[in-house]
């Protein structure tokens, strides 16, 4: 089981990409990132069926 993906980790990964987002853009990107983590969880649940 993976550790919970944190906002801090997401910020670090964006920085590694050289990507600097303003607060509004970051909020939208973080919401999308959390949604994608939810999609990963759905995929894992499907594979466990």
């Amino acid at each position: 089981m993976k550790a919970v993906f944190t906002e801090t980790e997401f910020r670090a990964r964006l920085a590694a990409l050289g990507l600097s987002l303003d607060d509004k853009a970051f909020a939208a990107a973080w919401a999308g990132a959390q949604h994608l983590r939810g999609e990963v969880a759905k995929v894992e649940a499907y594979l466990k069926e």
Partner: protein
Amino acid sequence: MTDPADLSLPEAAAMLRSGSLTSRELAEAVLARIATQNPRLHAFTHIATDALDQADRADALLAEGNSGPLCGIPIAVKDLMDVAGQPATSGSRVLAGRIADTDAPAIARFRAQGAVLIGKLATYEFAMVGPDLTLPDPPARNPWNPAHITGGSSSGSAAAVAGGLVRLAIGTDTGGSIRSPSAYCGCVGLKPTYDRVSRSGAFPLSPSLDHTGPLAATVEEAALALDAMTEGDWRPASARIGQPITGLKIAYARDWFADDPQASPALIRALDEAASTLSLLGAQITLVTLPDYPPFEAAASVILHAEALEKHRSLICDHAADYGRPTLQCLAFGAALDAEDLATAREAQTRLTADMLAAMEGYDLILTATTLTPALPFSAFDGEKAVWTPMRTIAFNLTGQPALSLPAGFENGLPLGMQLIARPGDEDLLCMTGHAFERASDHSVLRPLF
């Protein structure tokens, strides 16, 4: 006399071969239509400066009597794909000023057959997300109501065909980018089997899910275009056009859309009526429960975002400020994923594909919705963050099956689409059935009034 711009591809081809119409006359009629309608629809981003020269070369081929069905026919191409000598910016400031050196292989096949590559069409930026009103090219508008979006990402392709600017346009489809704009704009969109048409020469969004295919005014025209683009040994999509569909077994996946509270009641009625029409034509319609949709969407989303970020990694480093905000934010989502997540999603892709093909056992085709609503108004988009519209398309990017969207009705003057899906390589069955439905209904012959 019919305006040549309104002739179907087979009608125009017959007249070109008989000498009663020249390719130059056809190209001039199409250019005049574009000049009249494009300022309202913003479908084209570039008109080929050598369009009439191309038409003259096609006329020379026609005079030699050595020409195929697309010789002399104007075709427009989504600005995600390379057409030699024409701009190729993928709808982005990041690639502003880029001119393609060579044709994408699928486009080269059209050129070799004498088609007239008449111009480039609007796309959502890098085929990712839209509409974005802040980009240099204004977004394409829905011909049925310009206050509404076209859907995307093949936005200009759908607007150009539905608006009567061209009969045939080329698009790409990674999660529904041929089929959803076709449904929203009331034209035909054909996503072929994975790998049937070359993806080279198109800016990749997600190579595991990317497909190239036609948008057209009718199923027959889409089938002829696909055959012209196809590489290798595949049964022609047009081979069974006009044959009866008696005895065809169609699995009606009604619960995939009707159980979703986002589905419009008019769409559910339109799909039920489509199922009745297909039954009256002799097909056997059976209500089925397909594998659940959410795992398909989830696995495809993970693959798409992981691969898209990888493809843009170096461009983001150098050009982040040139991306539109919604596109950059969507690319940033992918930073939430790692290699293990992608491997997990690919494992699911293999299993989900097997599940879907097993569910089709005993059936020739699946019938379901393309999108769950008609096109949204532009006012629903603030230009800041992505807005996702509900659709049932990405599952078949994941499985690689061919899928056809065609007009099935209207809601408040806006088109609704239905989707037929076949096994890999069965585009002939798909187009035979779509054509039969089209002939039995009036949805595809209706055109917006200008």
